[in-house]
Structure formats: structure tokens, C-alpha cells
């Protein structure tokens, strides 16, 4: 195994282009655990720790927030830059693992691994985030929703690095929330839900929902969002949205819960997220 410590993105991309089966080392929270478990033995590790310009959070004039791929979960959890419809991303970051994991893990690493029970994928799909990807030949952007393609599978091709994630300002006056149900604090989600809402005189005029831990990727259902828009977010409307989402899900069975159990609690987790986002949207408007 080789070890590379590039200091520029260009160097890192060049190494990745030339090394078969090299892996980027971001925070190491997942990659090193898999190496320790003898699940992965890459030909080379390309550390991104010393690469300039990959970490940090920038809020632009138009209200969008760009998070560098090497930004630690704790930095996202602590930022004041994410507000309104973006707030759920910060909320999701604060719920990832434990303090030590949040000090190590990065947003780029987390989404590249694409565990469907992880917190960022669901929050970023809800927030309509864009992922910026670069390789030695080109740079491209892709919607979070299209970035996640399957169990531990993404739109990343060999040689690609996630360089940043951008969260648009979104709808004015929106409130958002990320709700997670886990067996113990810091575990991966059994079920999670992200919600962005905007209200006008108590009537919902915008809704975006994604649920996590219930399929190979975060699940969005346009008809479920449509159930909320125009409603006063009464229990029956939220429950109807939950039923539509559950119908589109196909959860795994594992020690965190059976498939049936996940589908059963999904509407409740969604209702909690809606209730939180609603209070926040009311406070804003």
C-alpha cells in the first residue's frame, strides 16, 4: 500500500487518475474502520488532509452555503451559516455519531460512502443540495438526489473526488428540521426524516420531504409533498404523506429494526420532523 499526502487538489486528482484502486482518505471514520475489519485493502491511500481549499463553510450573497468536502461534522453542526430551510443540514451533522466521530468525519467522506442510514444523505436531498465533483479532466455538479444511486453506491466514477456540497438559500421564510430515530445516541438511523416547510397564514405553501434508512437511497415522493402543500399541516395531511412515503420505501431487515418496523415508525418520525419545521417556519414568517 502506498501513501500520498498531496497539498493541492490537482496533485490529488493526478494520483487518483494514475493509481488503480486508490482510495481517498478524508476523515477516516468509515474507510479506516473497513480497513481494520479487513473489508478493504486499497493499493494506495490519498490523504486529503493537507489539500488546500477543501475545508470550510462559505455563505454567498444569494444565501447559498458551500461546505468544503473536508469540513468536519462538528464544524457543520456549529456553524451559524445554515439557517431557515438549510438548518436541517446542521441538525443532521450534530446527530452523526459521537463527539470523536464528529471531530474526524467529513461531509465529503460521508456522502461518498453513501450509507442509506447515514444522516447527511437524507438531509442533503431534503435541502436540495448540489454536490461538486472533480476529476483530472473536468469538474461537474450533480443534485444530491441523483448523487445517491444505491446501497453504498453513488454517481462517483473512478478518479472523482467530491470537492464541495452547496445548499441553496431555498424558499424565503422556510423552516426545516431533521428528525432521527436511533436505538442509542450516535447510532445510524433506524429511520430518519428531513422536512423543509414554508407557511403563509398557517397554510403550507412549500414542502420538501426526504426519508432515510428506508431504502437504498433517501426517498422523496412528490405526491407526499403535495399532500402538505395547501394544507394547514393537520395530523391527517401529515399522516397521508407518511403513508405515501412508506409505500415508496423498501427498507432492509437488520438489527436496527425489521423492514415492517421501519415502515411502521416512518409516519411518526415524519410527523415529528414536520412539527419541528412548522414551529420554525412560523417563527420566521
Amino acid at each position, binding site marked *: 500500500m*502506498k501513501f500520498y*499526502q498531496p497539498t493541492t487538489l490537482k496533485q490529488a486528482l493526478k494520483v487518483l487518475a494514475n493509481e488503480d484502486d486508490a482510495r481517498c482518505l478524508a476523515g477516516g471514520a468509515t474507510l479506516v474502520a473497513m480497513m*481494520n475489519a479487513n473489508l478493504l485493502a486499497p493499493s494506495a*491511500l490519498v490523504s486529503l488532509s493537507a489539500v488546500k481549499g477543501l475545508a470550510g463553510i462559505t455563505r454567498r450573497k444569494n444565501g447559498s452555503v458551500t461546505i468544503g468536502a473536508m469540513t468536519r461534522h462538528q464544524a457543520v453542526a456549529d456553524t451559524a451559516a445554515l439557517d431557515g430551510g438549510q438548518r436541517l443540514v446542521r441538525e443532521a451533522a450534530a446527530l452523526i455519531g459521537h463527539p*470523536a466521530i464528529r*471531530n*474526524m468525519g467529513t461531509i465529503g467522506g460521508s456522502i461518498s460512502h453513501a450509507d442509506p442510514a447515514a444522516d447527511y444523505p437524507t438531509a442533503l436531498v431534503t435541502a436540495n443540495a448540489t454536490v461538486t465533483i472533480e476529476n483530472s479532466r473536468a469538474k461537474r455538479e450533480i443534485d444530491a438526489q441523483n448523487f445517491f444511486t444505491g446501497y453504498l453506491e453513488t454517481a462517483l466514477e473512478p478518479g472523482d473526488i467530491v470537492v464541495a456540497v452547496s445548499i441553496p438559500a431555498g424558499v424565503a421564510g422556510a423552516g426545516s428540521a431533521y428528525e432521527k430515530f436511533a436505538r442509542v445516541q*450516535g447510532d445510524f438511523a433506524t429511520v430518519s426524516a428531513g422536512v423543509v416547510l414554508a407557511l403563509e397564514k398557517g397554510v403550507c405553501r412549500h414542502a420538501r420531504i426526504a426519508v432515510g434508512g428506508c431504502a437504498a437511497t433517501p426517498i422523496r415522493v412528490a405526491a407526499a409533498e403535495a399532500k402538505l402543500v395547501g394544507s394547514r399541516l393537520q395530523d391527517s395531511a401529515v399522516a397521508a404523506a407518511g403513508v405515501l412515503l412508506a409505500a415508496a420505501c423498501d427498507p432492509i431487515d437488520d438489527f436496527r429494526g425489521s423492514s415492517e418496523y421501519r415502515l411502521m415508525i416512518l409516519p411518526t418520525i415524519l410527523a415529528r420532523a414536520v412539527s419541528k419545521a412548522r414551529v420554525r417556519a412560523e417563527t420566521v414568517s
Partner: protein
Amino acid sequence: MTTTVPITLTINGALHQAFVQPWHTLLHVLRDVLHFTGTKRGCNQGICGACSVIVDGEVVRGCLSIAANCQGRTITTIEGLANGNTLSNVQQAFLELGAVQCGYCMPGMIIAATALLKRTPKPTEEEIREGLSGNLCRCSGYVKVVRAVQVASERGTS
């Protein structure tokens, strides 16, 4: 072909050098190369917290940190908390309250508690539980651990 990486670490205030392989973790280098065996190896998967150490002021998992990536960093292990024969506030509180059962998780618990109090000097009980949520005690003796952190907090840091 394997890269052997020379690294220099500042551990508990002293410089240490080692030659490491790319897959070596900081935990491996601390314990098996430099013999700082106070840091424990539990799950080696980042779950149990027994390997917690402080790197550049923040608590991290020794088992998930690639040693070659730690070049030039400043590390505090359990051996670095006491000042001579004087225990740190956290260590003293754990000792006085009998927060230790079998002891295996304790170096990680005490390191995590030390990092918590540095970030949040006066934590609530909930904040203590959250701050130590990544440190598992298989004797399940969490009550006295939480109390010890409260006592250490009341006495101030260091």
C-alpha cells in the same frame, strides 16, 4: 510497493519518531511501537471509544486515525493528564467517586470527559451523557461516571 512513512509526533509534550506503514493506525503506533499502552484497543471499529486520544485539542478515535496522516500533530494520551503524581481533576474525581469498575474503558472515558470539559466547562447532565455517548462501558457503570464528570466540572478544569 509499500510506502514507509517517517512521522514525528508530540505526545504528552515530548517528541517521538516512528516509521509507519500506510495502514497503521495511531492506536497501533501509540501502543505497539511507542508503548503508550494506557490507550486501549477495544473494537478497532470506532464504536467503543476505548482508544480515544486528544489530537490537536480534539478528542478522536485512535483506531480510525491513520498514523501517517498524523505527522506533526500534538497528541495527549491518558499518560499525559497527570502532573507528576498529581492527578488531573477528571482523574481525581473518577478515583474519588469510584467511577471505575473493570477499568478497561476508563482511559477513553477520562480522555473524552477531559475534552468535553474543555469545550463545555459547565455541562448539564444531558450534555455529559451526550459527550460520553461514544464511550462504552461494558460493566455499564455510567451513573458514577456522569457524577464524576459533574464533580470535576464543579472543581474547574485542568
